[in-house]
């Protein structure tokens, strides 16, 4: 059983378009992180959200943690080819140090 469901699994868009990636669970997390992974590399942390309803911005990327801390979204404005990669959400449960990862969203931005 997958604890964190990401959607869509694959996304191919044109440069300049906007997109949203979703990360959903029936479980509550004390914090949720978003990572980006390039081929042959490990995941690289983009952001951590810890408060229900929290919104964080990183340049053209906007991350939101759901009010109930069960879901999160990543919105990219005016996507660039450099945004191409595998985006992973990962949640941490209260009292635990390990992360539960989603299956990822593979984004391709076409020039």
């Amino acid at each position, binding site marked *: 059983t997958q604890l964190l469901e990401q959607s869509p699994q694959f996304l191919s868009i044109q440069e300049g378009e906007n997109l949203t990636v979703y990360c959903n669970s029936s479980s509550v997390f004390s914090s949720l992180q978003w990572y980006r992974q390039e081929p042959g590399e*490990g995941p690289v942390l983009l952001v951590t959200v810890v408060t229900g309803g929290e919104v964080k911005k990183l340049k053209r990327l906007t991350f939101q943690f759901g009010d109930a801390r069960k879901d999160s979204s990543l919105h990219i404005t005016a996507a660039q080819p450099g945004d191409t990669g595998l985006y992973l959400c990962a949640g941490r449960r209260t009292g635990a140090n390990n992360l539960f990862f989603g299956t990822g969203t593979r984004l391709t931005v076409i020039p």
Partner: protein
Amino acid sequence: EAGVTQFPSHSVIEKGQTVTLRCDPISGHDNLYWYRRVMGKEIKFLLHFVKESKQDESGMPNNRFLAERTGGTYSTLKVQPAELEDSGVYFCASSGLGTVEKLFFGSGTQLSVL
């Protein structure tokens, strides 16, 4: 500053053989984690060291897997004997004691068991 280093980057072995993966965390990072992604699945937690002590090994699949972190510096993950289902990418990650949320991942070891 060097990041998390993993060796080897790729390993191809036959079923029944032994393989040892190594991870060098960022210097000074007391937390060290092993994660694994098998084909088509999500990245899953294997175990967590704090310095040389195993804090949580609930994700270890079975007793064919042995992780060590002698001296609290680098860590090794040995698989003996390897089975076909052990194939996947093994990631190591580290973080400082007070910054458990800031996790740094290595590039992984791609293990193929034939």
